[in-house]
């Protein structure tokens, strides 16, 4: 696998997007995982390195999903410590992505957007703004997406993600939206993306589609739709670099 990646890197810039570092683990980062990431980043020299605002390891067991954090002062301190540790080990700034979440903890005391803003301010890390995740979490928890976007520090946002999601009706009649990277980007998410570009400027944008992968043509159409919005935002703002 590494050899293929090295060949790709010879011809293209690469962005490393991690899912296993578990920045929110109360028991600390897995030193082996951090070491492997540092070696990879050293060899590949990626343009960007990113991880998630989530956790997946407790008691020496990896639970194989991006699990939600209680948004508390303690969790903020833990995540800040781990982001600093990662940045020191990698000798570079990382981006931290807002997650899609399906449940909230009653003892959460900090809105997610404030949590991310504080994380960026305290550690100097960047924010990977996943617009689909904002839409999914806001819909699931009754948060306001406009407030979320408005509250993120624009200068910290270094990358944007888009993706498709699924909607499922639960027995109690409520609808839960699930980030599954398995369909076209929803119309509401495109609208939110245009607003994000206005606020954050033209940022590198990735469309995530890794389940039920369609014909290449469909992927190219989605990429073209993002490019159109990027160009429109660029034309509307002289601040945007080409």
């Amino acid at each position, binding site marked *: 696998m590494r050899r293929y990646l090295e060949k790709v890197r010879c011809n293209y810039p690469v962005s490393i997007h991690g899912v*296993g570092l578990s920045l929110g683990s109360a028991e600390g980062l897995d030193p082996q995982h951090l070491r492997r990431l540092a070696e990879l980043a050293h060899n590949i020299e990626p343009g960007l390195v990113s991880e998630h605002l989530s956790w997946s390891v407790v008691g020496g*067991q*990896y*639970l*194989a999903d991006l699990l939600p954090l*209680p948004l508390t002062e303690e969790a903020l301190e*833990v995540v800040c410590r781990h982001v600093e540790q990662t940045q020191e080990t990698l000798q570079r700034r990382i981006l931290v992505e807002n997650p899609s979440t*399906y449940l909230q903890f009653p003892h959460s005391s900090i809105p997610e957007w404030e949590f991310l803003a504080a994380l960026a301010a305290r550690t100097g890390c960047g924010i990977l703004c996943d617009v689909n995740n904002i839409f999914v979490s806001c819909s699931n928890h009754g948060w306001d997406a406009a407030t979320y976007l408005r509250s993120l520090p624009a200068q910290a946002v270094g990358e944007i993600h888009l993706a498709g999601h699924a909607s499922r009706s639960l027995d109690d009649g409520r609808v839960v939206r699930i980030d599954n990277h398995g369909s076209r980007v929803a119309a509401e998410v495109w609208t939110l993306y245009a607003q994000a570009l206005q606020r954050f400027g033209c940022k590198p944008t990735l469309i995530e589609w890794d389940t039920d992968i369609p014909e290449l043509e469909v992927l190219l159409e989605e990429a073209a739709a993002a490019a159109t919005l990027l160009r429109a935002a660029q034309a509307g703002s002289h601040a945007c670099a080409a």
Partner: protein
Amino acid sequence: MPAPPESLLETQRALRAQLFGADGVLGDEAASLQAPWPSEPRIAPRLAIYRNTGVSTLVNALRLSFPAIQRLVGRDFFEAAAQQFIRSQLPASAYLNDYGGDFPEFLREFPAAAALAYLGDVAQLEWAVNRALHASDSPALDLVRLAQLSQTQLARVSFVAHPGMSLLQSQTPADLVWRAVLHQDDAAMASIDLANGPVWLLVERDATGLQVRRLGEAAWRFTARLCAGLELHAALADESNEQINAVLADHLSSGRLIDFRLADNDTKAHDAAQSRGELS
């Protein structure tokens, strides 16, 4: 009723219990810790979203590591077996290339697969293949260093094997089954006599790619003793003959041995450490 958890660690332990049971076993009923939210029915389907994603990620990791097993038993059977394995053992880290080393043993004991005697052997071979594919590159032992040793020292030398190399003894011709399945070669599959075992295999990655080689029993036993770190004279045991010397020469020239140690040095290092109080 105990109070809901408040610390981050308590919350994470409680969520693990809700998702996989307190001891890492799947199922709501196994949760012995207080949930980090008030008990209400709308939480269960939301927990199920996380549980399903976690389990399907791990099933897919096992599918990638055991493609021949999946072809042998079919997608649905594989999924059922993998889910049961996951219930018995969650990964120890996020490095999923390391997850599944106990799956071959699980399959050997899996009652639903009892009729397929070769399944455990093929799974063991696939795990060795994974190790070979994922091992980091290690430069071969510099033979000039070996040549500087005296005959006496040479007899006391022990070797370090390449991390991607595995030795397997299989009661069934697992290598033939594995090849036929992955090549979807029905004719080859039909011609396999499962009684035609045991086979002694060496799995490695060389300059041209993955290799699954058959060794003679004597060569395999010698190699296994070498890889276990036995000194050369002990590894040779009573099999010291020209054929075994050729096997050693082949291992050295093929880069299967990447370093060596001398027993005397080890003894000195051990004594020094002991005098510093590092060893009990």
